């Protein structure tokens, strides 16, 4: 078995020497290409996230632009008029008290909310200039571009580690074996799991520890080559050591992927994220965005009193 060996990405080093800076590509072309290609897409050259100075990223820097987003469950409005921009190749944390719509918001970003029968969305979410809520976008294709990692590790119990990683590829079309082998190793390396499982790829995915299972789920999400990865409290079911590994992993992943993480743990948000959005809920129980900015700003010098109360632990 010949596998393409790739050094694990280290923080703050330029990505993959083989792929130099790419000319700007028409957003439409990107959106059309995305679901189909298996090989790693040539990555646009990026600045390390920490170097980006502004809280208001310009259009080229934005991975997702959310405008006037309202989410309803039946007649109940769960999210009210959220507008924010999520920066490409950065970690954006969403924090806020329980019930403020963090998870609901996250799930609309790859239209997972549609699994809830009564859920309905108003407003737009632009991904590379395309409104993902629009009639031209197929949710199945969208979810290959915007992947998701859940609160509890959920590897497919009937599948081996190997099969779990390639599930997204294999269940969407036939691929040659050598290509799958490559994807498995690359994805597991990027998820920092390769060394632990390379000798037992045929073992059942559920035989791993909780933390390993969660990294397997991350590898599985990476295997379909997403642009954005949504993480819904990815470490809340894990012990502190496993949590640390996931957090380190996020720091590495943001060089190639845009990451949005919902977390209840404010220290975690402070540690892992570049930007933080603070949500809370109003009198009508609808969640809304209070403020968003660079994580250091939000935690040290918030503009809004509500934010300050929350991050200083006086409420929630």
């Amino acid at each position, binding site marked *: 078995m010949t596998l393409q060996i790739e050094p694990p990405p280290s923080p703050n080093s330029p990505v993959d020497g083989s792929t130099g800076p790419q000319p700007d590509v028409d957003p439409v072309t990107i959106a059309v290409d995305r679901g189909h290609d298996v090989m790693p897409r040539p990555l646009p050259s990026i600045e390390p996230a920490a170097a980006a100075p502004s809280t208001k990223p310009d259009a080229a820097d934005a991975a997702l632009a959310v405008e006037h987003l309202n989410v309803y469950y039946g007649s109940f409005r769960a999210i009210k008029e959220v507008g924010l921009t999520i920066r490409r190749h950065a970690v954006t944390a969403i924090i806020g008290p329980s019930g403020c719509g963090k998870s609901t918001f996250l799930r609309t970003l790859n239209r*997972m909310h549609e*699994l809830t029968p009564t859920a309905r969305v108003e407003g737009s979410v632009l991904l590379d200039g395309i409104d993902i809520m629009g009639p031209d976008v197929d949710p199945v*294709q969208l*979810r290959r571009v915007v992947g998701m990692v*859940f609160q509890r590790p*959920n590897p*497919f119990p009937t599948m081996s580690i190997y099969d779990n990683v390639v599930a997204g590829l294999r269940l*969407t079309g036939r691929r040659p074996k050598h290509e799958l082998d490559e994807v498995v190793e690359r994805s597991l390396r990027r998820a920092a799991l390769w060394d632990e499982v390379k000798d037992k790829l045929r073992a059942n995915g559920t035989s791993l520890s909780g933390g390993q299972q969660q990294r397997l789920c991350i590898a599985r*999400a990476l295997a379909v080559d997403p642009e954005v990865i949504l993480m819904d409290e990815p470490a809340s079911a894990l012990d502190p050591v496993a949590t640390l590994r996931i957090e380190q992993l996020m720091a590495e992943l943001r060089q190639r992927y845009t990451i949005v993480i919902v977390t209840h743990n404010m220290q975690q948000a402070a540690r892992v994220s570049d930007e933080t959005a603070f949500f809370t809920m109003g009198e009508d129980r609808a969640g809304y965005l209070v403020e968003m900015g660079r994580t250091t700003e939000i935690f040290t010098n918030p503009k809004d009193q509500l934010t300050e109360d929350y991050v200083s632990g006086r409420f929630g």
Partner: protein
Amino acid sequence: MTTLAPVMDRSIAARLVRSPTDARRARTDRLMRGLALAAAIACVIPLAAVIGFVTVNGLGGLNVDLLTKAPKALGTGGGAASAILGSLQMIPLATLVAVPVGVLGAVYVAEFSGRRSANAIRFAADVLVGIPSILVGIFVFTFLVLPFKQFNAFAGSMALALLMVPVIMRTTEEILRLVPGTLREASLALGIPMWRTVLSVVLRTGLTGILTGVMLAIARAFGETAPLLFTALGSRLVNVGDFGKPMDALPVFIYVNARQPFPALNQQAWGAALLLLIVVLTINILVRARSWGRRAA
């Protein structure tokens, strides 16, 4: 204080000593426990009695002749080959029809339908499970026997399938509901289409449970007599492959032979009964043993 303490001691002691009320309660308790135990034993006795009775009477009839020889058209002698071969043909055909219908129906109810239609379909399936099987026989007789003016094995298979569908559907649906929603989400979030998610993740995860339901349905079909009397009818001839003609089946063979005036044929009926009991018990025990094994693991 010093005067109060002994009083307290006495009253606590008095409260601890068994009173007449307590003794009565203890007697009632023993009585009711005994009755419950007797009832529990009464539930188990029939099974033991049936197994014992059929084994004792059937051992003499269960021999190579019974398994290999066709029945004689008249008089005594021969065996139950017609019935064994008949059951082994009609039940696979019934399974072939019932499994896709039952499983797909369950997939619809568990994965795609709204709450109202799911409840309606589930209710219908539950009622169908409870319908006396002879009514199913008459129903199939009307549609698959009368028009052809000929009892036929195909009608027998369809009657059995009709009895198997609701059993398979209900067990499959229960199993599909046990598959965690997080697995569906995980699959859909990878951009795997819904149909593929159902096929490769949900059904795959519930596969052993679904097989259990199918096996139990097969065991039930093996023992059904009434629906076959109106459809496949039973036959003294070995019928291999001609589903347009009457066909024998084990329970029908038992029914027919038990009514004959010849002790030798009655003996064959006992032998066939033991054979049927072994088949059905084996399927049931295999299925349950596997689910025990999984629970232990």
